[in-house]
Every structure is written in C-alpha cells, then in structure tokens.
C-alpha cells in the first residue's frame, strides 16, 4: 500500500477523491483553505472558489441534487454564512452524497471567535464525524459519503486547526474506476421545501437521527481501547491524541461520530468506571449529553471551555500539575504579525490614522491596520460587517462626528458579503465613506483567486468583476479609484470624501505584492542616506518591517533584503533621505 505524509487537509482532499467526488466548492478560511487547494490536484473533480460560503454550499447542493458526490469546505464562522441552506438541506436530504467539512479554530489562531461547530450538527440535525488524525480524515470522509447516501442526509465533518495543519502518515487508496454520469431526476416532494413537503421531511429527519444513533453504536469508528481498567475517558478528535499522552493507561471510548452520539455504547462503557472523564475542546458538547443520560462525569469543571487543549493543559486541569509555558516575560518583545513590506494597505492606514477617522474594519490582512503604529481600526466583527457597521454608527452621530466614519474592506470580503452592506448604505442614504482595499486576491488566507482577480482556482483566466462599475451600479454617485502607493493622493482623497455628506467609495487599486504575476515591474530596494536623515522618525509611523531605528546613530535604516521598493516611505520623508539602490 502506498504511504504518504499528509496534513489533515491534504488527507480530506485525498479522501474526497477516493470517494468519487465530482464537484467541490469553498470559500477560503483558515484552517480549511488547503483542502480545496489540494482537491485541484485531482483533475477528475470540478473544484472552484465561491464568493462566499453560502454560495459554496448551494453549488454543492446543486451537484448533489444532480446525483453527484459533492464536497464543500469552510472555516467555522463560514457555517454562519452557509447556515441558511444547511438547515433546509437537512430536510431535503441528498441524492449524491454531500459532505460539508468545517474547520474549527480553538485558541483563535486566525479567527474572530472560537465557536464550536458541533453545536451546528445538533442544531441543524445533521450527523457529524470528527477525525483525530490524517488517516481518519481520509477514512471518515469516505465513510461519510456512504453513510450520507444510505441514510439520505448531508454529513458534517469537523476538523480543528491541529487536525487540518498536522501531518501524519496515511495509507492511500484508489478512486472508483467508473463514476456514473449524473442525470436530471425530478423529485419535487423531497426537494421543494414548501411547508406541506417540509412538514413531512421534518418527521423523516427525526427518524433518521434515531436510526443513525443505533447504527453508529455498531460501527468501528466508535471504539473502546482497553487500558488498565481503572479510569475511563470519553473523547473525540485531537483531544484523543492528548489523552493517549497524558493518560496512557486509561480505558478510552473514542467517538468518531460526534452527532448523534452512540448513547448505548456510552452507557455500557460508563457503567465500568467510578472515575469517568470527558475530554473535549471548547464546549461541553459530549459532556452535557452524557450528563443528561444520568451519568456523572468529570469534564469542564477541570478543563477550560476557552482555548484549545494541549497535553500540558490536560495535566494541569485534571491533576493540578504545573506545566512549563513559553517565556512571556515583558523583556522579550512580542512578535505580532504585521503587513508585509510593500503592502499596498500600509499607506492607507497611516493616512486614516492621521485623518483621525473612526474606522469600521473587516476581515483580512488589513485587520492588521489595528496594530501600532498604524492603529487605525476601531471595530471588526465579521466578514462584510464594516459597511453595515458604518451605516449604523453614522445614523446615531452628530453631523460633525459622522464625517469621521470610514468603512474599510478588502476586495474579496466586499464581494463575500460587503456588497449587500453597500446596497443598504446607498439605498438608505447614509453619509459614510467606504474604502475598498482592492489587491485583487484573497490575501490573508494565502492568496486565493476570487472574482476580482481574473483567474480561477486552477489559474486559468476568467472574467473579472469591475469593482468601480459594480459600486456605481448599486447607486454610489462618488466612486474614485486611486493608487495607494501615491500617498499625497491617498491623503487628499480620504479627506475630501470624509468631508462629503454623502456615500462615497474609494477603491485603492494595487495588487498584493506577494502575487508575482502582478508585480512584473521589479523595483529596486531603497536605502537611507544618513547624511540626509534627521532622525525625525516620520517613516516609523508606517510600521514597515523593512524600516528599523538605529538607537546609537539616531537614524533610520532599511533592510534591503526585504525592501520591495514601494517608495511609500520615501513620500513620508521630508528630507529626501530615502534613496533607490543602484542594483537589486
């Protein structure tokens, strides 16, 4: 058998391939992004980025209604966006199998909250698998397609950051040699969710869950591992791996299907132990259901609901042992993430700061505009929220303060859900200013294509949304497109549009400096001429990683290895100290 070292995300893509999936759709989001990026390695699968998670799921549902197996992937907060189709898909059931992979982010490594998606399984009445390593990711997704078709239900598969981004050794299988051509098949009683049909389907959903619970108790993905027989642990997902480190002698009930829970199996297992732990990350999802069965367990009173688990945190929680942690002494300066050298967003935020704007922010690299010294973001809630937030806050302010309100949103986030906010803003005659930071890529998650980039997931050329025309089409009367590398123009435009008592949209148009095809004009790095530098520190307000302060000489320096020559710093210097190097 062929072996490979695969991340959880690579294994999920491989599993979908081996399951005969024909269509895959997603919106990027850490830690889920690499699933679709690996799916495109398999030419048999039609894989595409959707503008948001709701559309991704609707595309998947269409393929599934056509009779194909479909894969849809997103991060935990993406399910909030896709929840509407998800809850009704639960009622319609499936024709071809549909698996929705949701990747949670306990510890918020790269997220705005740490919601536990298992609650969605219960809420939407959709079964959910949870793998504990890459092999299980591959195996479970294949089981999920078969089970989904057997029980006529979509299936959720939950990953977490430590599953998606951990590599472990996997045995690879094969894809079925032939997959039948999907065809149209009408079944309106099942697929048209008018009240009369949906009432009947709800009954089927409840019956389905009971059947699956009974079935699940007999499946090997729920297994008991015998230890010394003294202590019992119920666990699932990556927590299982930590339990094996911390409690190597415990008897473990490892749950593979976390909804519906295999209650009979749990009852039989629990009867054997006077000490029974439930070890799970985030919410007491398993614990509460086990307690509701009248079984007493030790769980969240010892292990935090907040943050991820680690072997050390379990040691500390269960046994009170003090565990080492990284050195967080204030003498060691923190190293938070920063915008890249040459990032086209940097100058915009410097000018927003200088213009004393109240910035309603959004989700993307530019959320880092919050960090000092740029310090120009005042709110950030969810994808697309900046524009609606700006409309709302403008409604309640005095005419004077209202002028300070600026919504800032990236191109991908604007198309995701921001466009609806702009429609509302224009339609309801708001006065706020919107800046669309258009770098023509979904940058934060690792530079994925989107409808503004002009390229598909597979890098083929395609149509490109004309952002300016789009804004005009919803009725915005004042739309300006500027180059954010031009600082004087950026400042002038921001101040003019902030003063205007009507909606205005500024599109700052510059490709992400990490996208090679858009940066063909290779620029030369800059250096600081110390004879000209007066040590005024104006350039330091940019917070560019390439610029640093020399405490001894009281002058600025540029690291020419990382400088990309955007020349924004040159424009902040009143003394002409920033000069171009003669060679790269």
């Amino acid at each position, binding site marked *: 058998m062929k072996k490979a070292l695969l991340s959880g995300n690579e294994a999920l893509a491989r599993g979908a391939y081996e399951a005969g999936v024909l269509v895959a759709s997603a919106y990027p989001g850490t830690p889920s992004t690499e699933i679709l990026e690996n799916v495109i390695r398999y030419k048999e699968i039609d894989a595409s980025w959707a503008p948001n998670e709701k559309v991704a799921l609707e595309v998947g549902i269409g393929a599934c209604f056509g009779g194909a197996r479909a894969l849809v992937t997103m991060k935990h907060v993406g399910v909030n966006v896709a929840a509407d189709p998800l809850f009704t898909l639960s009622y319609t059931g499936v024709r071809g199998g549909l698996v929705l992979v949701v990747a949670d982010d306990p510890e918020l490594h790269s997220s705005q909250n740490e919601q536990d998606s298992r609650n969605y399984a219960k809420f939407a009445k959709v079964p959910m698998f949870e793998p504990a*390593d890459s092999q299980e990711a591959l195996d479970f997704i294949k089981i999920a397609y078969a089970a989904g078709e057997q029980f006529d239900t979509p299936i959720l598969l939950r990953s977490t950051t430590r599953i998606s981004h*951990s*590599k472990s*050794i996997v045995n690879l299988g094969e894809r079925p040699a032939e997959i039948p051509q999907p065809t149209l098949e009408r079944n309106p009683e099942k697929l048209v969710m008018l009240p009369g049909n949906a009432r009947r389907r709800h009954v089927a959903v409840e019956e389905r869950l009971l059947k699956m619970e009974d079935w699940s108790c007999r499946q090997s993905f729920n297994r008991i591992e015998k230890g010394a027989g003294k202590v019992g642990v119920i666990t699932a997902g990556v927590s299982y791996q930590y339990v094996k480190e*911390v409690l190597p002698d415990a008897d473990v009930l490892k749950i593979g299907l976390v909804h519906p829970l295999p209650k009979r199996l749990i009852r039989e297992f629990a009867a054997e132990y006077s000490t029974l732990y439930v070890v799970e990350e985030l919410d007491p999802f398993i614990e509460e259901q086990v307690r509701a069965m009248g079984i007493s367990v030790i769980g969240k009173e010892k292990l935090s609901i907040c943050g991820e688990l680690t*072997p050390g945190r379990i040691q500390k929680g269960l046994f009170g042992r003090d565990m080492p942690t990284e050195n967080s002494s204030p003498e*060691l300066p923190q*190293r938070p993430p920063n915008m890249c050298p040459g990032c086209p967003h940097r100058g915009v935020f410097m000018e927003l700061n200088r213009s004393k704007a109240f910035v309603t922010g959004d989700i993307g690299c530019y959320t880092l505009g919050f960090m000092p010294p740029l310090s120009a973001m005042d709110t950030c809630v969810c994808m697309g929220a900046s524009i609606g937030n700006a409309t709302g806050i403008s409604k309640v302010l005095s005419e004077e303060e209202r002028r300070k309100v600026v919504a800032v949103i990236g191109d991908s986030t604007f198309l995701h859900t921001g466009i609806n906010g702009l429609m509302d803003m224009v339609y309801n005659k708001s006065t706020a200013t919107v800046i669309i930071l258009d770098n023509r890529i979904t940058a934060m998650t690792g530079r994925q294509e989107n409808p503004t980039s002009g390229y598909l997931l597979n890098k083929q050329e395609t149509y490109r949304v004309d952002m300016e025309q789009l804004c005009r089409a919803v009725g915005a009367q004042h739309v300006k497109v500027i180059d954010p590398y031009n600082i004087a123009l950026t400042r002038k435009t921001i101040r003019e549009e902030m003063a205007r008592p009507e909606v205005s949209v500024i599109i700052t148009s510059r490709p992400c400096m990490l996208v090679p095809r858009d940066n063909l004009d290779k620029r030369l790095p800059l250096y600081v001429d110390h004879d000209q530098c007066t040590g005024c520190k104006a350039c330091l307000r940019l917070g560019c990683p390439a610029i640093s*302060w020399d405490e001894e000489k009281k002058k600025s320096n540029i690291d020419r290895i990382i400088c990309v020559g955007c020349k924004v710093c040159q424009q902040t210097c009143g003394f002409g100290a920033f000069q171009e190097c003669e060679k790269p």
Partner: protein
Amino acid sequence: MKPVKNILLAGVGGQGILLASEVLSEVMMMAGHDVKKNEIHGMSQRGGSVVSHVRYGEKVYSPIIPEGEADILFSFELLETSRYLPLLRENGQVVINNLKIAPPAVALGKQPYPEHLIEEIRKQFPATMVVNGLDLALEAGNVKTVNTVLLGALSNILEFEHSIWLKALNRMVPARLLEVNLKAFELGCNVK
C-alpha cells in the same frame, strides 16, 4: 515501546521554517519512523513568531509536543530561542542560528533587543550549538538557504544517515535550487 523524540522549531515567519520541518519529517519517515508534525498557518506567517512541532518514534499520538518534553530546540532566531526555551527538557539540546530579527517594538525604537541571549542560553544548556547561518548561506551562494544550512548543522546531532538527508533534499527542493541547497547543507554539516 521506544520513547518518542521531539524537535521544536522556532523562528520568524518568512525564514523557511515550514520547509525545514517538511524536510525533517520526510527524513524521519524515510528512516522508517512514525512521524507527526504541526504548525500554525495564517496570521503567524505575516512576520510573526512561528513554531513547528516535529515528533518521531515507534508510535506518535499528539501532533504537538507535550510541554517540557522537547528534546531539541532548533531555532532560527535568537530572541525566539529564549521565548520557547522553557519548553525544552532539562537535558535537551539547542541549535541556534546566530541572527537577530528586530520585532516591531525594537524596530520602532520603543524597546531594546535583549542582550547576552546566547550566554543566558549557554548557562542553562552548555552544549548549545550556535550556527552563523547567514554567513554560510552566502558562502553557499544564496541568502535564502539559511534553513538548509541549519538542517545540515542539526543533522550532526540526529541519528539519520547522511544519504537519507540528501535523498529528502533531492525530493523536496525545486530542481533549479537543488545544487545551492546541497552545498548549503554540507556547509551546515561541517559546523560542530
């Protein structure tokens, strides 16, 4: 069952730590071990602090190294070494790249870069290996081969055969960069 061995990689986003941990785990798999590796993508790529956990042995469970059980701290930057030092075992080993990258507070002149870090680390771990990665990478002919130089230095304290390392590099490094990386690796191997 033989105990699992743990290597914690630390440094700054953009230093090639993820590629180094890829090569490292490939070597371990080729040597016949069970392997797990983990790191965080996303936010931390943007010049932030980066750690990667690599574990190997007969059977590895947790993809992250239990706190205080790292056998080797393999670090690409001085300050990051100090940050993650408490996660090392008492008799653990340290391999450090002799390089300072100023975090934002230092670059802005608001906080000094801590001094005497190597001396402090040596006090606790006398056998610490310090590598002048950038000098050797320049000697190899490409400033971006620091991570390969460091892998060469690390290979001196691991039990894997030289030929397995070469095979892994051959497999994972793009063809046009292979020669310079092999040279960088050998220069790293010469560091004792």
